[in-house]
């Protein structure tokens, strides 16, 4: 019908994008992968040998294993909080109508237009020793010493939620927005209570979407650099901070690259695992 699409030349449209991705993303990544196998010879120099030393060190040294586990723990906490807090919010927004809905969506989207660094410094004002929360609690007499909230796991989690939560909300909203609500009516009509019909229909049907949102939150929280570097505790480092330090301060490029690729591998394996799991629960979509 559309000869236009059959002509191969249409793919030329993608060429600039493909070239950009190739030269500015794919090639540097490949270069980094190669460096990750090099041998570090001290003082920022390295040998183009082939060694697994960096990977071996990262996955065996207890110091780095602690970093891996800490990063995963923080990412899991952020993922669960954003899903548990996000679902009811998304549900309420989807059920709202007219002006209320538009205002809610704007409240989610507008912060995304603000620069991340600016938002992180905003948390200094809120969480700091002389910050908003401490002053409020002191004035109310709830505490008599300012609570140390900044530069803790707590502030890292708050900062990561700030980054991830709006996106999780948007994903969950789009999932629930596609729900056929007459199925809820059918469930009620057949004798399911309000809660039971929600669980049996809305919730069960939204599980694949929730998995996508959770995955998104997890992978992002695992790799985020700015939040832990500006809000993180000195003693508790995340993988991305370690990568930055190795490359920028220690100048051990091979080891930094090994860690970076390990992070990528951890994220990818979670991605494949969850893809496999949702595929299992998803057979009804095949026909």
């Amino acid at each position, binding site marked *: 019908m559309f000869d236009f699409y059959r002509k191969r030349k249409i793919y030329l449209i993608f060429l600039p994008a493909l070239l950009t991705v190739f030269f500015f993303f794919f090639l540097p990544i490949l270069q980094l992968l190669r460096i990750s196998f090099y041998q570090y010879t001290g003082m920022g120099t390295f040998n183009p040998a082939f060694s697994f030393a960096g990977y071996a060190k990262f996955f065996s040294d207890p110091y780095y294993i602690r970093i891996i586990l800490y990063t995963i723990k923080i990412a899991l906490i952020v993922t669960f909080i954003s899903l548990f807090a996000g679902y009811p919010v998304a549900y309420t927004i989807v059920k709202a109508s007219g002006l209320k809905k538009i205002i809610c969506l704007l409240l989610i989207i507008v912060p995304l237009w603000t620069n991340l660094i600016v938002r992180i410094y905003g948390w200094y004002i809120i969480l700091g020793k002389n910050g908003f929360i401490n002053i409020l609690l002191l004035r109310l007499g709830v505490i008599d010493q300012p609570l140390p909230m900044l530069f803790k796991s707590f502030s890292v989690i708050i900062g990561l939620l700030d980054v991830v939560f709006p996106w999780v909300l948007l994903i969950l909203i789009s999932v629930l927005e596609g729900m*056929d609500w*007459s*199925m809820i*009516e*059918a*469930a*009620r*009509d*057949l*004798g*399911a*209570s*309000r809660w*039971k*019909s929600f669980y*049996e*229909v809305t919730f*069960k*049907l939204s599980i694949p979407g929730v998995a996508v949102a959770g995955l998104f939150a997890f992978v992002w929280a695992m790799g985020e650099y700015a939040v832990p570097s500006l809000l993180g505790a000195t003693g508790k480092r995340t993988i991305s901070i370690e990568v930055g330090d190795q490359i920028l301060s220690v100048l051990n490029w091979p080891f930094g690259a090994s860690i970076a690729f390990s992070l990528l591998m951890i994220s990818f394996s979670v991605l494949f695992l969850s893809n496999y799991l949702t595929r299992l629960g998803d057979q*009804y*979509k095949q*026909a």
Partner: protein
Amino acid sequence: MIDVELIHLTKIYHEVIAVKNVNIEIRHGEFLFLLGPSGCGKTTTLRIVGGLETPTEGFVKIKGDTVNHLPPEKRDTATVFQNWALFPHKTVFENVAFGLTMRKMKKKLIRDKVHQYLDMIDLSEYGDRYPNQLSGGQKQRVALARALVVEPAVLLLDEPLSALDLKLRQQMRFEIRRLQKELNITTIFVTHDQTEALAMADRIVIMNQGRVEQIGTPHDIYHHPGSTFISDFIGETNFFKGRISAVSEETCHIVLNGGDILQCVLHGEGPPTGEGCVSVRPERIFLHRNVPPGDKNVLQGRILDVTFMGSTVRRHVEFNGGMVNVDQLAGAADDGFRQSETVYMEMDPRDCLLLPD
């Protein structure tokens, strides 16, 4: 026995009146149709019975008990929705079993019942399939079984056939009516399709702009429509407008705008006066080449056009003051009146129905 009673039912959405003072009684085992154009309040009325909407005023009684305060899950009703609303993540078996599971029945009993109803709709082999592996007609039957399996006092159907193609629709009409009679279940069926209502209903409630226009058997509604709206909505008809004169006990004359006179048999609604509108069905008008003998109504006209409609042939006849459609069985029309021929239209006064204009 009266199974469902709707008393002074009114529903107002944001100052728009969707349903206005509807009163209907439905007998046990009756197949009742709510028929009307879209926006006439028929679906809202059905949803009020099922508990999916709350009436602004009035009462719903099921088996003598007022159920206004009961949520849908506590009512002895089951609904087949317009898009069937099957659960896509559950198999056919699980879909049908849903209502029984919610009633916390024993597993074995559920299995037996589901199989019994899957048998009834000829889908016993399909229990393990998912809804999107079924055809439209099969989905429709699953939705029906899912509602019937809970053995509700009242079955509610909201335009369940509108998404099917014509052939399947006709087949399902027959099947639903057979099941309804077999199970002797009180049923309310909402549709805008008058042929569906005429073919399936025990009684039809005609609704228009939120109000009940007429309640009657399909035969009554078709042959004795209570208003020009119904006459126009149910089947096809010709309207003749004119002034009423020469009123007697049983008949009256209508002087048409073109000067012709039609005699109508009255049906005892009291002597009509002023302007009137006469409805004559296209199949109740007979064409002749010469003035037919007898004392029936005869109008002279000229055939403007002939339309072949399959089983019938329609002639568009122009007469002094208007246009009339005349239908004849295609076989009978073989001798054929041709275009621009002059004809005499014969109408029995008993087929000329005077309606309030």
